Structures are given as C-alpha cells and as structure tokens.
C-alpha cells in the first residue's frame, strides 16, 4: 500500500509531525509545572499579606513605576505626564472582601499629585481630566498581584534565575512573548520583536517585590517598557481625611 514514493513520503511527514507535536506538548506540560511554582509563590505571599489586611478596613498600597518609554499622556497643564512616578492607592475592602471605593494618586518625584481618580458607587471619576466613566463597575475582588499569577499561566518556557537587585538577592521568573509580526509600539513607533516579562521575588522572605516588561527591538536594543516595584501594602482602620474628601467628589 505504501510502496509508492508518495506513500512513503506521506508516512515520513506524518511521523515527523507526530514527533513535533509530542515535543510541543511535552514542553507545554513542563511550562505549566513552572507556572504552578510561581502561582504558589504569589499565593503564599498574598496569604502572608492578607493577615494584615482586614475586611471592613482600608488598604494603603504604594508602588513605583519606571519606564524608558514616554507615556504620551498630555496633562491639563499641557505637560507630558512623567513616565516614571509613584502610585499611591487607598482601597476600602467591604465585608465581602471586595473593593467598594478607592482613591488613586499618581505622584512625581517631589510628591506632587499630577493625576488622581476615585471610585465609589460603581463609578470612576478622574479628577484631573474631569472625566467620569459611565460604565457600571460593581465592587471587585482585592487581587493585588498585578495579574502576575494569571499572566504566568499563559507563559511559555519560563526561566528561573537568581539576581542581585540593589544589593538584595532575588529569585526571578522570566518568559518571552515573540510577536507574530514586526509590531510598531510606543510613541516612537519602534519595531518590537519580543516582550520579556520578569517577576521578582525576595529570596529570603519569598515576597513578590517587582515585575517588569522589557522590549527587544528589531535592531537588538532593549527598552524597559514598564517596571513596577512594590514599596508598601498596609491595612488601616480609616483613610486620611483628605482621601475621604476626594471620594466625596465622585458622588
């Protein structure tokens, strides 16, 4: 039956494709195992943090954002929004563990607020631009991991490494997304080939401390598109008066 050249060729092709498929799925299984390791680290960290964060109270979260790309956002004073800043958020967690209201401030290096928004009664209001989001946003879960645990489940070929960052030992999980087509991104329309995501955990405590995305351009150069470093996450019975005043503006 398979004595003809065509028949043998077909069998050969099928066998090759079969091995490719086996290799593909074997690798995929290995990735899931690695992803599980990261998810466990994130969940363990969240569980440790959650002990200090009680329902019916406020959570104060501060993190720094740095980027080598311009944000493209023009502020009302016609200045370009800084691409590196400190984000300071206050979230009220209701008795069901959902975020019911909050105030979100972006501050420059001198501590000045350059953009602020607030959430209450299912509505977001941007106080800086005077824009009210008409969407109906019901209270949402307080999931404070920047989407790391979800994103890593889709990652391929996760690599684990040890790095020293600012003199501290970190365990780093990284993975690369190769763009299907040469894609122009950012304000300068640079051509990006791959996007690498790196998630950093403190080696001693296991705490999640940083996440960043790095572009590799067609010319081989690398640009840090977004680097987020957690500064603090703390629980408080009450929010400061100035935060409560901001909330009143949402109505």
């Amino acid at each position, binding site marked *: 039956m398979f004595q003809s050249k065509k028949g043998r060729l077909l*069998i050969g092709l099928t066998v090759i494709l079969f091995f490719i498929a086996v290799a593909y799925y074997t690798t995929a299984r290995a990735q899931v195992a690695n992803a599980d390791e990261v998810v466990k680290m994130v969940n363990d960290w969240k569980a440790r943090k959650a002990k200090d964060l009680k329902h019916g109270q406020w959570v104060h979260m501060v*993190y720094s954002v740095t980027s080598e790309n311009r944000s493209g956002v023009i502020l009302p004073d016609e200045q370009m929004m800084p691409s590196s800043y400190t*984000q300071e*958020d206050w979230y009220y967690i209701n008795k069901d563990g959902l975020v019911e209201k909050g105030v*979100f401030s972006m501050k420059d290096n001198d501590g000045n607020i350059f953009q602020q928004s607030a959430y209450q009664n299912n509505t977001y209001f941007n106080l800086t631009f005077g824009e009210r989001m008409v969407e109906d946003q019901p209270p949402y879960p307080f999931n404070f991991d920047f989407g790391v645990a979800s994103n890593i489940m889709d990652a391929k070929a996760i690599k684990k490494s040890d790095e020293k960052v600012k003199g501290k030992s970190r365990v780093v999980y990284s993975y690369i997304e190769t763009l299907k087509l040469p894609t122009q991104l950012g304000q300068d329309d640079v051509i990006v080939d791959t996007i690498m995501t790196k998630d950093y955990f403190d080696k001693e405590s296991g705490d999640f401390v940083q996440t960043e995305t790095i572009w590799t351009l067609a010319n081989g150069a690398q640009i840090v598109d977004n680097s987020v470093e957690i500064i603090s996450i703390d629980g408080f019975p009450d929010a400061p008066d100035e935060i409560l005043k901001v909330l009143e503006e949402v109505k």
Partner: protein
Amino acid sequence: MKIKIFLLALTATIILVANFQPALAGSWMYHYSAVYVQATSYGGGGKKISKISNTQWLAEISTITTPGLATVPVGWTYWTSRELCNGSIKSQKIHSGRSVRTSTGTTYNYQYMTTQSCSIGTRTAQVLGKHEVLGSKYIYRDNWIRSANISDVKTSAEDLPDEDIP
C-alpha cells in the same frame, strides 16, 4: 486509500492544533449618519478593541460610506488610543487627522498598545475619535469613545457602552 485520507487528516489536525492560538478579537461597533451624505449612501464610523495577549491590545478605527462611494472624502479629525487603570490615564497614543478618497469609500487605521501596570481594579482600553464624511448632501461628523474592559486576562476584551463626546 482510506489510510491515506486518515493520515492526511491527521497531518492537517496536528498542524492546526500546533499552530492554533485563540483569537481574542473584540467586535466592531459602528455609528451611522441619520441621513444620506451623498446620493443614497450613509456615512459611518467604526471602532474596535481586541486583546492580543497579556501584554498587548489592538485599537482599530474606520470611517466608511455605505454603500461605498469613491468620490466622498472619508476619515477623522483625530483619533486616540489610550489605557486607563482605575480611571487614571496610564498611556496614550494620539494620531493625526485624515481625509481621503478611496476606491472603496472607506479608510482604516490601527495601533498596537502594550498593557500598563495596574495593581488591582479595572483596566480599560479606549479608542476615541471624531469621524468625518464630507458628503455633498450632508457632512457627517461624530465624536465618540469606544471602551472595553481588558482586566481579565483569560477573556476577550469586554465591550462597554459607547460614550458620545459633545
């Protein structure tokens, strides 16, 4: 012969499965003129938001005549793609205006965007733009915002209600 067909089908299946990546495309939303802009054609504008991956989303815009009229200039006075976290604007790309005559009576543009840091809460992708169709009977201009929730990494962009800009 049956085995050959089986092997061919198996080969095709393996190739398809190995290369398939789920599309997370959103849907086009169009607004149209209430009256003819020229002859018996209406003017309209469409916007679309799709999630490409956990790190990227795609903003698309088009302005059309329907049925298509090659003689009518179509375009926009501006369009912008931007991302918000908890109501704050995190990144934005502003595009210049366009007014062109095309053989199909439509014009289109797109922009890939990378997702920004958002600790908790709602990540919203938006396409803003004022569509313009310069018909001889009627000039159609419409300024509105298309929004989609891109918070959930496991699902496609969840379209939100459009918003008119006065």
